């Protein structure tokens, strides 16, 4: 009985994919039949998980695109046609992302897709977008080391988030000792590799860097927080750089608060914690811990105030927060609309060629520009957590920072550039003057 039951449990996990796929397919079908088949609309694909682990973050982005489409349609749509959203649910299941992307492009004939959150989901849809030649706008900060013709990266590259945050801590807080704590997957690992190289280039010794990885959804942080405390008692100012992702953050911050680690002793700067994540915790013990983003809801600018108001009216929730990936979608959507209007076509090839150089207002009062490497220029802000779950901006870059597709800190990538305008290449080696070609 027992051996059998263990076996059964194991078997069920391989079946989980099938079940989720079936469920997702049904949802997908429902959304297709629900949409009116009309030729006089331009279809926009939305590829964000609405169920499963990532639903917590991605659902908001789906709502954002629906909101932006609604706003655009009120202004008369694009090229005289209304926009129509096609929403599918990849259910936090990476292979399903590829299936759903294929469905959006071949079956629903969308002109552009806004979607993905995790790097693994982006990597999973990449071949589909290349093969079927469509456009993906990817709105989340990521590890870089990629520049694809069919993808536009509106989130931050490491030099637009991680590096400025470390610079701030080094200069303003005089931090000498570093804990790089992350969830065990590609984004934290690559970011930490870049940060480690960067810190060493600034003269930080190996023994002053502690790197720690935890599994997804880690909830027992006692040992790690105690380790951080211990590491921080070496007489040098210590800070934690956190690439801890998703749900694991809440218990981590709770443990920090309970063990009495205050931001004024050991500050934690996070790259994945925004307004949305803080909505689930009591932030009083977290006062002063930091986050680095390209947008904060608390930033005062006419564009931002207008956006927040319209968003809260649209969602009929006066407390609904906004966050950085939402702003990335706002910028990306605006850029796509402008590019389509520029070439008077939704043909992906024409739009892809038109996008570099397009400018769009960001919500913090500046103007972001799409670069030839398909990344955008963004300002970088460091915010301290306030007691009300919002951020108080304590530092910002003087101007906009251009996103580097390839990190200058890593040996393998410092000679590479992405240039889809002149060189028509995502990974051009400036030393050998050769394009490395596909396979990113």
């Amino acid at each position, binding site marked *: 009985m027992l051996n059998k039951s263990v076996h059964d449990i194991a078997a069920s996990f391989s079946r989980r994919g099938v079940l989720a796929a079936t469920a997702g397919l049904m949802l997908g079908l429902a959304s297709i039949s629900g949409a009116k088949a009309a030729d006089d609309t331009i279809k926009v694909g939305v590829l964000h998980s609405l169920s499963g682990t990532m639903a917590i973050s991605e*659902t908001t982005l789906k709502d954002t695109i629906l909101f932006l489409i609604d706003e655009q349609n009120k202004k008369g749509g694009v090229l005289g046609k209304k926009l129509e959203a096609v929403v599918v649910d990849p259910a936090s299941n990476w292979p399903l992302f590829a299936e759903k992307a294929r469905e959006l492009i071949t079956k629903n004939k969308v002109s552009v897709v806004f979607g993905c959150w995790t790097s693994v989901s982006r990597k999973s849809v990449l071949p589909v977008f290349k093969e079927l030649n469509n456009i993906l706008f990817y709105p989340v900060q990521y590890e870089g080391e990629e520049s694809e013709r069919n993808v536009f990266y509106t989130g931050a590259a490491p030099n637009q988030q991680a590096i400025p945050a470390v610079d701030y801590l080094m200069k303003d807080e005089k931090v000498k000792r570093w804990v790089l704590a992350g969830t065990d997957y590609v984004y934290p690992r690559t970011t930490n590799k870049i940060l480690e190289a960067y810190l060493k280039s600034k003269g930080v010794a190996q023994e002053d860097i502690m790197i720690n990885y935890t599994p997804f959804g880690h909830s027992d942080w*006692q040992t790690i927080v105690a380790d951080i405390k211990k590491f921080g008692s070496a007489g040098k100012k210590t800070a934690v750089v956190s690439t801890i992702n998703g749900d694991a953050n809440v218990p981590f911050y709770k443990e920090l608060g309970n063990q009495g680690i205050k931001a004024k002793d050991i500050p934690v700067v996070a790259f994945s914690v925004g307004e949305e994540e803080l909505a689930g915790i009591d932030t009083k*013990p977290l006062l002063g811990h930091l986050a680095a983003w390209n947008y904060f809801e608390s930033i005062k600018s006419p564009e931002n105030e207008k956006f927040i108001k319209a968003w809260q009216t649209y969602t009929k929730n006066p407390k609904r927060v906004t966050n950085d990936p939402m702003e990335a979608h706002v910028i990306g959507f605006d850029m796509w609309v402008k590019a389509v209007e520029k070439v008077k076509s939704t043909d992906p090839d024409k739009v892809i060629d038109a996008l570099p150089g397009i400018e769009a207002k960001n919500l913090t009062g500046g103007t972001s520009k799409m670069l030839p490497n398909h990344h955008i220029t963004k300002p970088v802000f460091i915010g301290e957590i306030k007691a009300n779950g919002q951020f108080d901006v304590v530092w910002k870059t003087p101007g906009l920072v251009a996103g580097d597709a390839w990190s200058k800190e890593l040996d393998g990538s410092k000679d590479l550039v992405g240039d889809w305008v002149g060189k028509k290449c995502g990974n051009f080696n400036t030393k050998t003057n050769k394009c490395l070609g596909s396979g990113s």
Partner: protein
Amino acid sequence: MPTNLSARFCTFVLSLFLIAFALPAFAGPFEDAVAKFANDDYSDTEEAIGVVAGSGNKLAFPIISALQDGRLMADSDSKKVYITGADGKSIDAATGEPVASVPDSASAVRLNNRLRRSVDAAIGSLTLQSPDIGTRLQAAQSVFKSHEETALEAVDGALAKETNKSVKAALGDARAAILLFKPDATEVEKLEAVATLKARGDQEALALLTGMGDQPASVTKAAASAISSIQSSLAVWSTVQNAWYGLSLGSVLLLAAIGLAITFGVMGVINMAHGEMVMIGAYTTFVVQEVIRTRYPGLFDYSLLIAVPLAFVVAGAIGVLIERSIIRFLYGRPLETLLATWGLSLVLQQAVRTMFGPTNREVGNPSWMSGAFELGQITITYNRLWILVFTLAVFAILLAMLRYTALGLEMRAVTQNRRMAASMGIATSRVDALTFGLGSGIAGIAGVALSQIDNVSPNLGQSYIIDSFMVVVFGGVGNLWGTLVGAFTLGIANKFLEPVAGAVLGKIAILVLIILFIQKRPRGLFALKGRAVEA
């Protein structure tokens, strides 16, 4: 002492009064500094804190403490700064004159971490002689942390008057910390300081000793021996700490698994929706807290006590419903049960997601579950401690219930030999429903406790289901004691592996060990013997 203090304070106020009248139109350094708060510039604020704290002005303490609590309002246009009190009354920070109202254009002076440290240091040296023992202790501790040379005089003054033993010790530590970093302190003073810190023996002392920079040779030598002695004592404590963390993790595992020990362990139902019962319990807590927040804010500290029975009833009722509508048709068909309950778990998750939204819900910690206390050199957080106590209580109650109540007797009879029990007149299907309800209800209670340490999101249950099965299978199916021993063994093993192998490898190692163990003893730690299990 109070008379002495108040007398001093009186002369002090009087002299201030005189100064104020003698120079009515003169804006002194104090007023200039106060005006700097209105510049909304961190370095100006820092300068202002330094000047105000060192000014000796009677408004210094009210200003700095208002700054700390975000009650210091500054108007950047008129350069006026106001202190707003908790009672809604406000005064002008530069003059101390009451003002009718603070203009709308004024906003709270902003702080960053660097400034918060300066504020703490300033408050520390200003409150070293406060009448309240707790405040004095806190003051001494913050001076210890900042160990700025300027505070030495204040510490010496306070030390001479201090009568309370623990405050005196804290002041001594603070003095040692200051002297250690004071460049012109004598070698004897520094050696004494090292000895004091060695006696303190905690991580903070270690931090000071390792970071003290260049010192005379004798001091460096004494410090090195102090460091190694502190380190070796901390190493012993860290073993104790790992053991405590292991117990704590074990209690969480036990709490999550204990309901499954009933539904899977006793009844043999492979219940993949067990985690969702835990989640429902957590959401019940959220709803209870929401109601309390909006209607009866005073009851917040009791919210968990109210949530426990409710979560039991809600999750238990859903459990009975599931048993009656699905599981009873699937007894003896483990594969179908597994698939059906797995599907059910997805349905429940999505239902909760639709009702409450996909994002985390905030479940607050009552005051008695927040914070930590120090036991020797280890930190014990209250929430973990209470969860351990709670888990053991739930376990004891469940054990007593199975042993001493009629329902417990019937449950054991039905699971051991269904046909015999039926022929003795026990309504077996009713007992099945109640047993499943009991297991689900206990899972619901677990949810109340887990809401205190984890996310309350629709995914809550998923993260516990695998661990729960692991514990029950490892401990021995059908044996509650096995579940207890299994949970604590896994918890402690995990926590001793984690510092060595890291969290990711530690978890993998535990899984591999369990697989090997199951190969050797397929029935787990405590196997039930006899005919019953073969049925």
